[in-house]
């Protein structure tokens, strides 16, 4: 095998431009595959991290009627836990309401949360520092879409537990910045004690956010969504995106492999006398097959080296400075968490996996035409008569 590598390397370098064209296109493919996957991995990691920090915590204990995707049932999906409230759970109560910024009516979700909670990154400690009647936290998307600023006071209207409308003024005490649109767009966060008073739903919650120490045991009328289950939807969306992106790089890889296949077919046809000579000098046919296969896979090895050399500064730049996402993507609720800058995650596993994929596929496409050498008559090969 060592001999095959030595000879293949010499043959490849000796073939000049043809070899380097194949290596070039394969190296480009190698970089694109790694870049796209790292970009999606980076997005996935950032989205997961942010979702955990801002929304999911380490899991959610949800009221049996709560379905985050059903706006018609949200108002009724609340209740009290039969067991004493664990210190590892933070209650969140959700009620629908209307907000009147600049005289317009905006339907929102009003979320009450404990001001002492430490599980989420929401700056709820600001509630305690405020002397406003109803202090409210909003995200930058909510602030931007409704032209709200810190200190603004605006009318809030809601229904209490008996269905009676009530209204009061709330004060924006802080605007937080998050990549998680589902805790930002179209919602306000207020102290849960105030929301209990406003609605008469004392001690009730729509769901509880679990801390790391929370250990779940089944609770009647409540269902538990672990962190992994909550992240699953996000992962599925990213996997779907990954699958669609993979069409592009499989197409690129296909072109590169086609170039290698074509080169191998042409090479075997043009180098018949050389093949005959190898056999005359004492190589077995399978050694020659091995030599040509290694030659083909050597393209991928060289491409991995060239790709790594070219790719390292590119990968370093993007993993350090990230890739800016356009505002129309980050400012709207796209149904999935997207950071303003995505930092691709170039992992050793991804790079090694891509090298393995490229080398393996190049070896297979090199072997397919090369195995015909085994059937070659050395006398015909020496005469260059093989068709």
């Amino acid at each position: 095998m060592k001999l095959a590598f030595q000879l293949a390397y010499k043959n490849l370098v000796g073939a000049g431009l043809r070899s380097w064209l194949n290596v070039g296109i394969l190296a480009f493919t190698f970089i694109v595959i790694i870049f796209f996957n790292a970009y999606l991995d980076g997005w996935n990691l950032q989205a997961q991290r942010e979702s955990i920090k801002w929304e999911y915590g380490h899991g959610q204990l949800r009221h049996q009627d709560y379905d985050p995707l059903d706006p018609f049932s949200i108002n009724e999906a609340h209740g009290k836990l039969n067991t004493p409230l664990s210190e590892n759970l933070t209650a969140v109560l959700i009620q629908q309401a209307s907000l009147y910024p600049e005289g317009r009516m905006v339907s929102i979700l009003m979320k009450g949360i404990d001001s002492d909670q430490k599980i989420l990154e929401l700056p709820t400690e600001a509630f305690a520092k405020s002397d406003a009647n109803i202090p409210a936290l909003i995200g930058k998307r909510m602030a931007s879409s409704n032209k709200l600023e810190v200190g603004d006071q605006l009318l809030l209207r809601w229904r209490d537990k008996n269905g009676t409308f009530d209204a009061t003024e709330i004060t924006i005490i802080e605007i937080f910045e998050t990549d998680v649109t589902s805790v930002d767009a179209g919602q306000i966060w207020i102290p849960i004690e105030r929301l209990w008073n406003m609605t008469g739903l004392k001690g009730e919650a729509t769901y509880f956010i679990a801390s790391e120490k929370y250990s779940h045991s089944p609770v009647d009328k409540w269902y538990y969504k672990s962190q992994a289950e909550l992240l699953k939807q996000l992962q599925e969306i990213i996997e779907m995106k990954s699958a669609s992106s993979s069409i592009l790089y499989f197409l690129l890889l296909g072109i590169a492999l086609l170039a290698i296949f074509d080169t191998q077919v042409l090479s075997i046809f043009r180098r018949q006398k050389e093949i005959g000579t190898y056999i005359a000098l004492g190589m077995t046919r399978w050694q020659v097959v091995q030599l040509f296969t290694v030659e083909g896979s050597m393209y991928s090895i060289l491409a991995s080296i060239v790709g790594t050399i070219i790719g390292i500064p590119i990968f370093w730049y993007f993993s350090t400075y990230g890739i800016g996402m356009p505002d129309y993507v980050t400012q709207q609720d796209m149904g999935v968490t997207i950071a303003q800058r995505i930092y691709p995650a170039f992992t050793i596993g991804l790079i090694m996996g891509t090298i393995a994929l490229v080398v393996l596929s190049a070896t297979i496409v090199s072997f397919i035409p090369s195995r015909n050498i085994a059937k070659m008559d050395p006398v015909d090969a020496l005469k260059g008569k093989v068709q």
Partner: protein
Amino acid sequence: MEPIIKIENVTKKFPEGEGEFVALKNINLEFQEGEFSGIVGPSGSGKTTLLNIIGSLDQPSSGNAWVMDKNVAELSHKESAQLRNLHLGFIFQVYNLLPVYTVFENVEFALLLQNKSKEERRKAVMQALEWVGLENIPNKKPSKLSGGEGQRVAIARAMVKEPKIVLADEPTANLDATNAHAIIQTMKKLNEELGTTFLFSTHDEKVMQYLNRIIHLKGGEVEKDEIITAQNPKS
């Protein structure tokens, strides 16, 4: 003394259209170690076919070809490759040098297949290049060599592993008279010094004058087996 090559009732047929072409008809020949012999005859007389069978590149349709006590007809691909690698050297009409390798690497190739150490290979290659007078150009590529130099490299490549038998198929066909004489003289010298058996296929008069034995083939049959001078057996 046991012959180094023994051809026994060898017939070789090739498919041709719906019938077949008989390239060799019931050939019987023996070659002793150290011979400097040639198979001569017009084109299509079966010279190269016979040489290919002896070189275990081809197999007879019937009969047996014994090369160093091994029946070519019964060898597997691996065994015939081993026979060629260890005991047979080939010299071709168009040199068949490997274009991306240097002179040194071309000659070294056969030794790489024998897994010899780097130092052993270097010594043997330089020795072989010295035999053919090319020790000063080991780093030249085949594309930069003249016809005579190319064929000398091919001789060095065939001789570097010091094989028992060298098979030379029309080695002077592409050379001018001066180079042809020089090449044959080089091979003759190696035959005398190392006792290597040389078997040529040729119709070149310049080659014939150096041969100790000439086998005339015509239409795939031995027409005449002519001993020119006393053989030079190694023993």
